[in-house]
């Protein structure tokens, strides 16, 4: 039964991927990509990786999807001129090489694959967490998570640097000009309370069950964007003091606790005995602020209005 479902899902994923590759309409491709992200998250559920599934649905389908939709809406170059035959063949060959290389790597993996899972489970108690994924992200491999938030901020700086000098620190372009649809305004008033409660739940439950700050932050960013789209809140100023502080607080708290670990626990990003869980929650809360601000501003785009003073 589960095999039949897995097979059906695999076929669906492959067909969707193929359709995305050949479809010509930019907007349709983005919708296809969002669906593809949701299908992939079902695949992760089937592989019992609910944490990855939640992240894939939130980031891969939702956040990336809306980012691409906004880009597609503002490109205004449709219909594309069809690329030349040489271009198409070389792209096809390169993609085939990547696929073949990936397949070869997967097929040559030793069986059973080398795993750190027993080690992770063995030391789980010392982190006072119940969810091994959170333990990996914020205790065993905290450095990776620290670098991840830097990647996010660097991406945001990259987006901001696309704006004109005279708009530096101003708000991004408005979502749409004219009156927002009444249905959208209705949704933007109804949905955020649910979103905030659900995000708080995901954040809190992340210590012991699948969930965590990244998924929770994505939901909060989505709620913020929804309210902005409906014209209830203005586009955030990219130079606003509070928003800059929100962006900085995550890495600052993370690094401060990391360095405090050197005298207190004998290593960068080491947590003193008995304080692991409170410190992890503190880091996650600070990171959540930064991730919400970064994701919202990433989707909003570079400043395109003169700064309000």
């Amino acid at each position, binding site marked *: 039964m589960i095999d039949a479902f897995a097979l059906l899902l695999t076929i669906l994923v492959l067909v969707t991927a193929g359709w995305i590759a050949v479809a010509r309409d930019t907007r349709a491709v983005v919708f296809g990509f969002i669906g593809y992200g949701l299908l992939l998250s079902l695949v992760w559920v089937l592989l019992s990786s609910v944490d990855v599934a939640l992240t894939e649905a939130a980031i891969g389908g939702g956040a990336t999807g809306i980012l691409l939709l906004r880009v597609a809406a503002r490109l205004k170059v449709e219909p594309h001129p069809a690329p030349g035959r040489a271009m198409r063949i070389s792209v096809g060959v390169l993609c085939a090489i990547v696929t073949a290389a990936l397949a070869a790597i997967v097929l040559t993996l030793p069986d059973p694959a080398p795993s750190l899972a027993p080690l992770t489970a063995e030391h789980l108690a010392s982190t006072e967490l119940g969810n091994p994924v959170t333990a990996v992200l914020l205790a065993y491999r905290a450095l990776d998570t620290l670098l991840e938030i830097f990647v996010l901020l660097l991406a945001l700086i990259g987006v901001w640097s696309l704006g004109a000098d005279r708009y530096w620190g101003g708000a991004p372009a408005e979502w749409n000009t004219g009156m927002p*649809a009444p*249905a959208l305004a209705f949704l933007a008033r109804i949905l955020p309370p649910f979103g905030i409660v659900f995000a708080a739940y995901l954040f809190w439950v992340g210590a012991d069950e699948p969930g965590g700050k990244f998924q929770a932050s994505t939901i909060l960013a989505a709620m913020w964007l929804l309210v902005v789209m409906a014209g209830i809140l203005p586009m955030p100023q990219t130079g606003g003091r509070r928003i800059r502080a929100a962006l900085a607080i995550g890495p600052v708290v993370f690094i401060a606790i990391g360095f405090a670990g050197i005298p207190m626990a004998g290593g960068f990003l080491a947590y003193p005995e008995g304080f692991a869980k409170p410190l992890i929650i503190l880091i996650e809360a600070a990171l959540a602020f930064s991730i919400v601000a970064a994701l919202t501003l990433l989707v909003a785009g570079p400043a395109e209005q003169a700064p309000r003073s």
Partner: protein
Amino acid sequence: MSLGLNIFTVLMVSAGAFFFLAGTVGLLRFPDPLTRLHALTKADNLGLGLVILGLLPQTVSLLGGLKLVLVWVLVQIGSSAASQLLARLALRRP
């Protein structure tokens, strides 16, 4: 008693699945965006509603049942707003 409830579940979920099937056929076969939206919303509210109604007797706790109903309500809000937006877009550029 439990046999009756199980039969109820099978009947309701099957009816829900039928509406999803009909909605999909409508999406593929109907001529313009508005009628396609009409077909889709039937799958959303009747299809999902019947599936959840069918699943209610199978829930272990009252809270679980409430969550299922809440899922349906949220889908109602989301899909009705989304179809309003799509319909506006379809009317604006025929």
